């Protein structure tokens, strides 16, 4: 038994090995990387630019009744345009919708990347890889956490690339922005991706059918996206939808990233966002580890 004693008992050894396996599968396949980054960029470009809500007002030139003297006509037009700008700012917190939406896309990238993490555990089970891993002394929790960790790393890298493109396409950072805020942005994305990938893995932990997994993903992704402030502020939603959005962790991730990138910083709100995200990540990661002890093997 001298053999097994010389082996490391460090759970990180196995965790990193399994994570690295997932990452290798990803970066060895540049096409997959390309596609997974292209999709959000297309969304951002088409949706963010097409829904040019600000232009509704700036392109608006009302025909005023001719009895108003021309001096006042200009004044009225000017004040309408000024008012409309205020409406936009009070709704979206920033003067242009593209900036608002492109920051929301960062969480969208995280959601769509983590969504597939459950899928890989289904495949590992079906192809027998999971059984082989379970027959080795690697910690059960490491098997789950490697899936979470690789999804997190992938999400963050993809979000970083998408953020770069957003800046190129016209995302204008807010007045309080400093490069240091980027750390906060990625911290928020880190927490939301831990929580989300844990949820999707939990759903898959016993599953042997990838069809079920696909159905679950399709069921969850758009509601999670629309019942949040990703594309539109919650304040304009009906009450019941606001309630849903207030529970949805994606709302808090978006709020945190927008605070840091676009808005004048509201420290109290930001701390609340991070607390909510931190609890979300912690609770679901912990549940994932605990259930892996019980349910990973049959």
């Amino acid at each position, binding site marked *: 038994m001298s053999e097994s004693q010389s*082996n490391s008992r460090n759970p990180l050894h196995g965790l990193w090995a399994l994570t690295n396996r997932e990452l290798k*599968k990803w970066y060895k396949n540049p096409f997959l990387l390309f596609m997974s980054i292209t999709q959000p960029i297309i969304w951002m470009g088409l949706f963010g630019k097409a829904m040019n809500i600000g232009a509704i007002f700036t392109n608006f030139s009302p025909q005023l009744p001719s009895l108003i003297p021309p001096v006042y006509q200009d004044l009225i037009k000017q004040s309408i345009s000024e008012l409309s700008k205020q409406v936009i700012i009070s709704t979206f917190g920033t003067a242009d919708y593209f900036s608002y939406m492109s920051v929301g896309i960062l969480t969208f990238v995280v959601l769509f990347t983590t969504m597939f993490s459950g899928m890989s555990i289904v495949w590992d089970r079906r*192809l027998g*890889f999971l059984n082989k891993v379970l*027959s*080795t002394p690697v910690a059960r929790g490491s098997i789950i956490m490697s899936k979470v960790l690789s999804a997190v790393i992938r999400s963050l890298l993809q979000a970083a690339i998408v953020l770069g493109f957003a800046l190129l396409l016209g995302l204008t950072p807010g007045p309080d922005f400093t490069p240091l805020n980027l750390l906060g942005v990625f911290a928020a994305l880190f927490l939301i991706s831990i929580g989300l990938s844990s949820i999707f893995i939990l759903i898959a932990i016993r599953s*042997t059918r990838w069809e079920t997994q696909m159905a679950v993903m399709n069921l969850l992704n758009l509601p999670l996206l629309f019942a949040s402030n990703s594309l539109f502020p919650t304040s304009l939603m009906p009450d019941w939808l606001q309630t849903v959005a207030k529970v949805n962790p994606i709302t808090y991730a978006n709020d945190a990233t927008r605070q840091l990138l676009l808005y004048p910083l509201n420290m109290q709100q930001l701390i609340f966002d991070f607390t909510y995200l931190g609890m979300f990540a912690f609770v679901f990661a912990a549940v994932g580890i605990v259930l892996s002890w019980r349910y990973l*093997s049959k």
Partner: protein
Amino acid sequence: MTAEAIIVDGLTKVFNKNLVAVDHVNFSVKEGEIFGFLGPNGAGKTTTINMLITVLKPNEGNATVCGFDILKQPSEVRNCIGVVPQEYTADEDLTGLENILLCADLYGIPRETSQKRAQELLALVELTKFKDKQVSTYSGGMRRRLELACGLINRPHVFFLDEPTLGLDVQTRAATWNYIKLLKKEYGMTILMTTHYLEEADMLCDRVAIIDHGKIVVIGAPEELKEGLGGDIMTLSIKDGSADISDVIVKVPRVKEVKKQDGTYRIKVEDGEETAPSIIEAIRTGGHTVTRLSLTKPTLDEVYLEYTGRSMREEEEAKESIFSQRVAMRRARSGQR
């Protein structure tokens, strides 16, 4: 370390509350033995192995592997075993070497040791030339050899092989068995394996157990089991078809049973080769001439059919296992397109 590498005591697994896959199974495997697990599809072979490798929890009973309790000391068990599952489990997107190193990491083997061992094992299974190629380019035989190498990375005391030759062609099967024999010689492991190819089990295994409907129906050395059937079968005919000399033949020592059918005699006999001359002699003394004689040694196939019956198995198999079998077959053939 005990002299018994595996002791199984009343191991039982029930699926979905009523499907008894393994039903109070008892057996033990001696240190250094090659033990074969034979039985029809769905008999409970893989389920038993999965319990012994701590992937499945038994509903009842217990077992020790390398002296460790599979329920109370699962990590110790996992540390001392190697497993080659039925499926090809190596990651297609990684290279052969990367796959072996991944397995090593799962055992927490330090990188310097695992690098050295991986090279050694790759040489042993003759994959050194292909170590940096992606597994998706490997043929079935190469994948199987890679699985063997992965299973050996932690120098296991007990090695579990589940259908190691499933879907391989005859040459690759022969080669795989050579590796297994070589590995056993090199590392002196205890091996527990399942197979459908009975002539292989006969050739390789020190002892076999035939399992059916979740129960072990018979256990013993292949030779013993074949003899247990009542010896060799001799058929002979004599010149004078109408005469009945059954009573002459049955008096020859070591002849157990004689039956006359359509003018030929079917004789159950122990040690056929040595008894044949005395039978011929006895017949000649009785005044008859032997015109034709053939001797068949019972094979393990006959033992198997004797205990499991001849009816085909059409039990429903889990969709999952059929799927993984299909994938395994397809991968096995991928190199032969």
